[in-house]
């Protein structure tokens, strides 16, 4: 098929939007940590724009989207962007240049890696994080992306639906975050010491950029510019709105409607709608978003307050739980009336779809969890995952990066 200029404009713009999510995430996370770790936290997202940006074009894309090997992993035919050109791919995104599809996918890989860092900020060694992440990208992200989205991938073949990465991005990141926390342990002084966010306006800015970018993430995943993209766009906005509003109300019932809670809710709603956006009616995004906020709120409370698990920026509660709920919700609310390439879900009488979704959740989540423990252990044994006590106390900005976020005359 020839390249369609409108579809290409939308896909390129979507790729740019998803790219912006990574600096957005950097600020979202950076505002939530203590002042002495702001830059280190930001760097844990920004650095992957470099590292994963390179690995993806060198081999990541090929192993994810190249010729299938037994449903498990892609081939080497796209190594170093070989055969990835200005013409549409024969298989993916048939109305836009293959390069556009490839770079759109690159942005997903980058942010996925950045996402899980939220769990381990304020204590992980920067060098070890880079090595871990390169391995994780290769061993966890690349194959699971193939399972779900690659032509011939076994989950795709099974009919598990994941419109824009609920499983590949969010479950992967959320579950791996939890595994990493188990390896790494709590921050010194958690719980007990106040770990007050240093800059909530920065968190809001990050959340705003994430919401904005998510239109590219979800509606861009239609890969064309038209009805499906519009439907996914609307569902995305509704889910974010519903979840932000729900979280605000829950926190109000507990005491006050917090800003941090409201923006967190928005992000959780966006996570939950991700796998569903192009398969459900826009209005289904209301329950999907609202329930996501409830699950994530109470999941977070349980984990953090009750059980003392120091998933520092709640990556598992937001992305893991939100992603799992979203994947299952896709199996509940999906309807072919929205997307003929999709499937009907539970409500339309197809309980099987929910089962398929469950298989997707369990297989990707389980694999990510175990693989992360393995890779993490390996890196811990060889390089050490955690900074020394003095380095942690003085803060990672100075100890890992030799910088302070806010200079000036004195501080």
């Amino acid at each position, binding site marked *: 098929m020839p390249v369609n200029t409108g579809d290409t404009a939308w896909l390129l713009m979507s790729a740019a939007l998803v790219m912006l999510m990574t600096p957005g995430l950097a600020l979202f996370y950076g505002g939530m940590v203590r002042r002495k770790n702001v830059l280190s936290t930001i760097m844990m997202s920004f650095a992957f724009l470099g590292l994963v940006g390179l690995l993806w074009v060198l081999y990541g894309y090929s192993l994810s989207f190249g010729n299938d090997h037994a449903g498990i992993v892609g081939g080497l035919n796209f190594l170093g962007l070989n055969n990835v050109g200005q013409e549409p791919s024969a298989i993916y995104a048939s109305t836009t240049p293959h390069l556009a599809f490839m770079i759109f996918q690159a942005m997903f890989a980058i942010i996925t890696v950045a996402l899980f860092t939220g769990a381990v900020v304020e204590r992980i060694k920067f060098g070890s994080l880079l090595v871990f992440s390169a391995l994780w990208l290769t061993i966890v992200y690349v194959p699971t992306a193939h399972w779900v989205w690659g032509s011939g991938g076994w989950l795709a073949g099974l009919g598990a639906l994941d419109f824009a990465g609920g499983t590949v991005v969010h479950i992967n990141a959320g579950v791996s975050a939890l595994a990493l926390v188990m390896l790494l342990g709590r921050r010194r002084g958690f719980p007990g010491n106040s770990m007050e966010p240093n800059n909530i306006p920065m968190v809001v800015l990050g959340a705003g950029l994430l919401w904005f970018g998510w239109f590219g993430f979800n509606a861009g995943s239609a890969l064309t510019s038209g009805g499906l993209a519009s439907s996914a766009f609307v569902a995305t906005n509704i889910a974010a709105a519903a979840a932000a509003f729900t979280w605000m109300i829950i926190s109000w019932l*507990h005491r006050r409607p917090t800003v941090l809670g409201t923006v*967190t809710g928005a992000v959780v709603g966006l996570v939950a709608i991700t796998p569903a956006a192009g398969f459900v009616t826009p209005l289904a995004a209301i329950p999907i978003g609202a329930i996501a906020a409830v699950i994530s709120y109470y999941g*977070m409370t349980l984990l953090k307050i009750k059980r003392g698990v120091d998933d520092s920026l709640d990556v598992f509660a937001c992305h893991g739980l939100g992603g799992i709920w979203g994947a299952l919700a896709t199996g509940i609310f999906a309807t072919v009336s929205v997307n003929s390439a999709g499937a009907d879900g539970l409500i339309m009488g197809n309980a099987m779809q929910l089962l398929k979704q469950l298989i997707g959740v369990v297989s990707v989540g389980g694999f990510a969890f175990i693989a992360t423990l393995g890779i993490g252990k390996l890196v811990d044994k060889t390089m050490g995952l955690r900074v020394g006590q003095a380095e942690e106390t003085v803060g990672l900005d100075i100890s890992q990066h030799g910088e302070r976020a806010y200079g000036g005359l004195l501080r």
Partner: protein
Amino acid sequence: MKKVEAIIREERFEAVKKALEENSYFGMTVSEVSGRGKQKGISLQWRVGEQRVDLLPKLKIELVVLDQDVVPVIDAIVRNARTGDTGDGKIFILPVETVVRVRTGDRNESAI
């Protein structure tokens, strides 16, 4: 000469400043501090749960004055900084041995 150090609520600062001004006490140095006392802090909420923060923002005013000015300055501060709730703050009086005006090198009384 004495140094009057007053720790007061931020929100009473404008009133205190005005009162001092009206009594012709212009010179002062102010800084942002955090304090704890009878007032046991406030409860903040973030994503979930609550957390007590026990150091609250206060302002510290420092004025160096002649001995005879200590009492009127204290009075002006107390009258204007008081709300009656815990957390109103404290005033400390410390002895000062020498005062120098940097601009002129003047010492003591004439330097205040």
